[in-house]
C-alpha cells in the first residue's frame, strides 16, 4: 500500500509572493479535490507548519523547500501523469479566477441607481433590458449624466425622442434604441469587432454596416464608431444622434475623416445631415446603401460599405478615393467562376442569399438591382418584391434572418445558426438554385465558431451541386480570429470574398455564367 502511494505521480507548483487567506485557499483546495483523477492535493501558504502538514499527508515534493511563508504552494497527487498535469493547470486557474472575483468591479448591483451611486466615475450605461423597461433605465442614466447605448428594441418612438432631446441638451450620447453596434474609445459594445484605433470616425444607423466598415478599416484603425439606432433618421427623430455624433467627431482631434452609414433617410433628413457634414468640414464619406450621394466639397459618396471604408482609407493615406469592384484580378475571378459554373446544370440560374446582417442583406439586394437582377426579400428594396420569410424562394431571393419572426425566443442568427442551417439545406434541394450566398459576422457577441456551425449544412449544399459564396466580417483580434474562420470555411469548399459587396457580385457572376460582367465597371 505504501508503495502505491509513493508510486503515484506528484506535481507541485509555487506561486511566488502571492498571499491569500486560508479560507480562500481551502476553497481552491476543495475544488481541486473534486477534479478528475485527483487522489489528494494541498493548496497552502508555504509556512513551515503547512509544509509539515503536506509531509504528513504524503504531499511533499522537493520543490516545496523553495516555498516561503509569502508563497502559495500547490501539490497534486493523481492517478496518472496526465491527470496530474491537468489538475495542476486547473488549480492555477482557480487561484487566478477567484482572484479576479476579489476586485471591487466584480460587485454586482441590483439597480442602476445603486450602481451609479457606487461607481460615480462610470460614463456609459449599456442597456439591454426588455424594451418596455429600457426608457426608465435610460432616463436614470441620462439624469445622472451618463452616456447611454440602448441595445433594446421596441421602445416607443415618442420615448426615443424624449431621451434623445434630453441627451442632446446635456451633451450626452444616446446610441439607440435598437443600437446593436458601437466602438467607443477602442472598446467594442454590443455586436462589434475588435478594431485598431486610428484616424477614421464612424457614425452609423446600421449595425452590420458599421461592423463591415470598421472591420475593413482594421489596418488603419478607427477613432470612434457611434451607433445611432435604427430609428434615428426617421422624420420624427430627425437624426438627433447622427447630427450630435457628426459634431462630436468634428471636434475630436483624433478623427481625421468621417464615415456616415445609413439606409436611405428621407430627403429632409438627408439634407440636414449633409448640411452638418459640410459645417464640420472634415472629409466625410457617405454611404446611404444605394441612396445616391454626389461628391461635393468635403463630401464623398460611396456606393458600398467597402467603398466607404476604402475611400476613407485613401483620404487618410493621401491617395485618390476610388470604387472597388473586386480585390483580385479579373483572370483569377474568371477561373473561379469557371470552376464553380462547371458544377452547375443548365437549370441552376438563381442566387439564394441567407443573411444574418440586415444592412448586408440590403446592400446585396442593391448591388443585384444594379446588375438588373431584382431580388425578392422579406425586407425588399421595393414593396413589389416582398416575399414571406418562410415562403419558398422565387428567382433571386435574399432573406434577412435577423428579423422579428426569426429571433422570437431564440438568439440572433449571428449566434444561433439553426434556422440558417435548415434554410441552407432547404435551398440546396431546389433545382433552379445555383448559388447560396451568406454573410458570416464575427466579433463580440457573435457565435464563437461559425465555420463549425455551418459545416454540415454547407457540405450538404455542396453535395447537392450548389456553389456556396460568402464574406466574413471580422478582424484578427476578434475572439474567432478572421484567418482561422476563413481557412476553415475554405476547407469546406466555401468561396470567401473580402467583402459583402464582392461576395454578392461573384454570386451574380456565377449564377449568370459571367453574364453580368457588363454591369461591373
Amino acid at each position, binding site marked *: 500500500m505504501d508503495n502505491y502511494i509513493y508510486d503515484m505521480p506528484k506535481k507541485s507548483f509555487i506561486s511566488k509572493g502571492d498571499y491569500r487567506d486560508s*479560507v480562500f485557499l481551502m476553497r481552491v483546495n476543495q475544488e481541486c479535490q473534486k477534479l478528475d483523477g485527483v487522489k489528494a492535493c494541498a493548496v497552502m501558504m508555504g509556512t513551515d507548519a503547512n509544509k509539515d502538514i503536506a509531509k504528513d499527508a504524503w504531499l511533499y515534493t522537493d520543490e516545496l523547500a523553495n516555498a516561503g511563508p509569502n508563497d502559495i504552494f500547490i501539490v497534486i497527487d493523481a492517478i496518472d501523469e496526465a491527470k496530474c498535469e491537468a489538475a495542476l493547470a486547473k488549480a492555477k486557474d482557480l487561484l487566478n479566477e477567484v482572484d479576479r472575483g*476579489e476586485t471591487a*468591479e466584480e*460587485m*454586482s*448591483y*441590483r*439597480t*442602476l*441607481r*445603486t*450602481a*451609479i*451611486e*457606487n*461607481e460615480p*466615475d*462610470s*460614463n*456609459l*450605461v*449599456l*442597456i*439591454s*433590458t*426588455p424594451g418596455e*423597461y429600457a426608457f426608465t*433605465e435610460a432616463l436614470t*442614466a441620462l439624469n445622472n449624466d*451618463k*452616456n447611454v447605448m440602448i*441595445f*433594446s428594441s421596441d421602445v416607443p418612438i415618442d420615448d426615443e425622442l424624449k431621451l434623445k432631446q434630453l441627451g*442632446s441638451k446635456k*451633451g*450626452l*450620447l444616446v446610441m439607440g434604441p435598437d443600437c446593436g453596434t458601437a466602438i*467607443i*474609445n477602442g*472598446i*467594442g*459594445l*454590443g455586436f462589434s469587432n*475588435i478594431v485598431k484605433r486610428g484616424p477614421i470616425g464612424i457614425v452609423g444607423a446600421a449595425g452590420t454596416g458599421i461592423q463591415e466598415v470598421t472591420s475593413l478599416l482594421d489596418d488603419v484603425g478607427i*477613432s*470612434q464608431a457611434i451607433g445611432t439606432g435604427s430609428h434615428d433618421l426617421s422624420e420624427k427623430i430627425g437624426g438627433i444622434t447622427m447630427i*450630435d455624433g457628426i*459634431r*462630436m467627431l468634428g*471636434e*475630436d482631434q*483624433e478623427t481625421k475623416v468621417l464615415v456616415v452609414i445609413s439606409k436611405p433617410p428621407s430627403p429632409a433628413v438627408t439634407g440636414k445631415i449633409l448640411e452638418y457634414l459640410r459645417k464640420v468640414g472634415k472629409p466625410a464619406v457617405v454611404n446611404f446603401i444605394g441612396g445616391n450621394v454626389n461628391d461635393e466639397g468635403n463630401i464623398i459618396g460611396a456606393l458600398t460599405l467597402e467603398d466607404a471604408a476604402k475611400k476613407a482609407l485613401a483620404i487618410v493615406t493621401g491617395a485618390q478615393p476610388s470604387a472597388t469592384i473586386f480585390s483580385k484580378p479579373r483572370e483569377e475571378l474568371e477561373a473561379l467562376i469557371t470552376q464553380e459554373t462547371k458544377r452547375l446544370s443548365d437549370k441552376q440560374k438563381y442566387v439564394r442569399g441567407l443573411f444574418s446582417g440586415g444592412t448586408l442583406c440590403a446592400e446585396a439586394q442593391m448591388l443585384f438591382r444594379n446588375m438588373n437582377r431584382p431580388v425578392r426579400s422579406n425586407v425588399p428594396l421595393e414593396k413589389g418584391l416582398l416575399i414571406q420569410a418562410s415562403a419558398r424562394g422565387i428567382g433571386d431571393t435574399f432573406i434577412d434572418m435577423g428579423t422579428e419572426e426569426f429571433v422570437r425566443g431564440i438568439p440572433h442568427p449571428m449566434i444561433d445558426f439553426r434556422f440558417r442551417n435548415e434554410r441552407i439545406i432547404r435551398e440546396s434541394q431546389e433545382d433552379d438554385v445555383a448559388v447560396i450566398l451568406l454573410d458570416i459576422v464575427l466579433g*463580440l*457577441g457573435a457565435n464563437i465558431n461559425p465555420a463549425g456551425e455551418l459545416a454540415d449544412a454547407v457540405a450538404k449544399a455542396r453535395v447537392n451541386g450548389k456553389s456556396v459564396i460568402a464574406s466574413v466580417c471580422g478582424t484578427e483580434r476578434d*475572439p474567432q480570429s478572421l484567418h482561422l474562420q476563413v481557412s476553415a470555411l475554405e476547407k469546406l469548399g466555401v468561396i470567401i470574398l473580402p467583402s459583402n459587396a464582392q461576395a454578392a457580385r461573384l454570386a451574380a457572376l456565377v449564377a449568370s455564367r459571367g453574364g453580368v460582367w457588363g454591369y461591373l465597371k
Partner: protein
Amino acid sequence: MTTKLFKQDIKVINVGLASFYEDLKYQRARVTKVDWRPPAGGNLKLVQLLSKAESEEVANANKIAVRKIVTSSPKLIDIKKARDVIGVLRGNMTLLHSGPPIEWERMSGPTKGGVIGAAIFEGWASDAGQAEELAKSGQIRFETCHDNSAVGPMAGIISPSMSVYVVKNEENGNIAFSNLNEGVGRVLRYGAYDEEVQTRLKFMEDVLAPLLKAALIITGPLDLKNIMAQSLQMGDELHTRNVASSLLLLKELGPSMVNTDFSKSDISSSINFIVKNQLFFLNIAMAAGKSIMDAASGIRASSVITALTRNGTDFGVRVSALKDKWFTAPAPIPKTLFFPGYKEEDANPDIGDSAIMETNGFGAFASAASPAVVQVVGGDVKEALRNTIKMSEICLIKDKSFPIPQNNFEGIPRAIDLRRIIETGTAPIINTGVANKKPGMGTVGFGILDAPMGAFIRAFEEYASTL
C-alpha cells in the same frame, strides 16, 4: 455639443444581457454589472402602485423623515423603574413584550418563558404552573414594547419593577426606553426563568441598575450617537456585536462608578458583569434607535420604514405614513450557526425588537463594519460588504455621521424606503440571536435572515392606497 467621453477612459455599467458584460471583460474594459430584473418581480399591480408612489409629495415627505433621522440626537439621561415611566405598567399585572401584538395562546416558547419568568420575578406567581394559569386566564395583560415607546431584545419582556434606560432624543424631544441586558445563555429574554435567571435579575435591580444610575448622574447625559459612531469604526455593527460599544460605555461610566458611595464589592461585581457581557450596550443602542424612529413616525406620505420587529411568531413592519399600524407575516427561522449541542429543530422563529438596529441602518445594514459577524454564518469580508451595498439599494441615504472604514468611509445605509423594497424585491437583512423554541431553555446560536416580503407587500398596498 461637446463631449468629454472621448477624452476619458470608458467605464461601462451593463444593465441586462450578461454576455455583454463578459465581452467587455474580455476586452479588459472597466465594467460594472447590474443584476437586472423586472421591477416588483414583474407584478403589474405593484408596478402601477410604484409609479403612483414616485411622486413629489412622497419625495418631500421622505426628506422630512430623513431629516428627522439624521438630526436625531439620542442621549442616555437616566435609569428608572419601568412602572415609573411607562404608563400601562402602573395598572394590575401588565407586561410588555417584543414584536407586534400577540395573545398568550399564539406566543412562542421563549416569549411564554419570559412571561413566566417575569410573573415569578414580580411575585405574581410562585412557580411556572401558576404563572401560566395567570396568563391563560387573561389576568396578565399584554402590551407591545413598541406601542409604549420601548424596545426589548428577544422576548422583550419588561415588567413593572424592572429598571429601564431612559433615552431622550434631544433634537425631537421624545423619550424611549429599554431594559438592561442580562448576557447570553440561560436568560429571561431567551425564555429561561429558573433560579439562576431570577438571581441575576435581582442582582441587576438591587445593585447594577442603582449603581449605573448613580454613575450616570456624576458623568452626566451620555451622547449615544458618539459612542455608536466610534464603535462602528471599532468593528461593531451594534446588533449582534457590541464589544467595542460596551467597553466605550464602561470608559464613560467606569470612573464615575468608582466615585459613587457603592461598596467595593458592588462596584467590582457590576464591572465584572459588564465586561463579561459583550452585548451589554445593545439595549441602550436599541433605545436610541427607538427614539430616532419614533421621531420619524407619522409623517404623511412618507414611505420610510419605522419599525421591523418580531415576537417569535409574527414579523411586524411599520411605515411612517401609517404611524402605529402593524403589517405582519409569519416570522422566519434564521439561518443559524448553532452553539455546540443544538440543531435546526431547536431554533425558534425570529424574535425580538432588536431589529430596531437594522431599521436604523446598523446590524446587517452595517455588516461591512463588522465582517466578524458575517463569518458567523460562513460568510467572508466580501459578503459583509455586499450585504451593506445590497441594503443601500433599499435605503434613501448613506449617513456620513456613521462612516464605515471598510467601505471607503461611506456612511451606513439608513432610512429604509418601502418603495425600494417592493421595486427591487430585496427584503431587509437582519442579524440576530436565535432562541430555543422551548420555554425556559435559552440561546441556541446566532443567525441571519431576510425579513419576510409578505409583510412589506401588504404594507405597501395599504400605503399606496393613501396617496
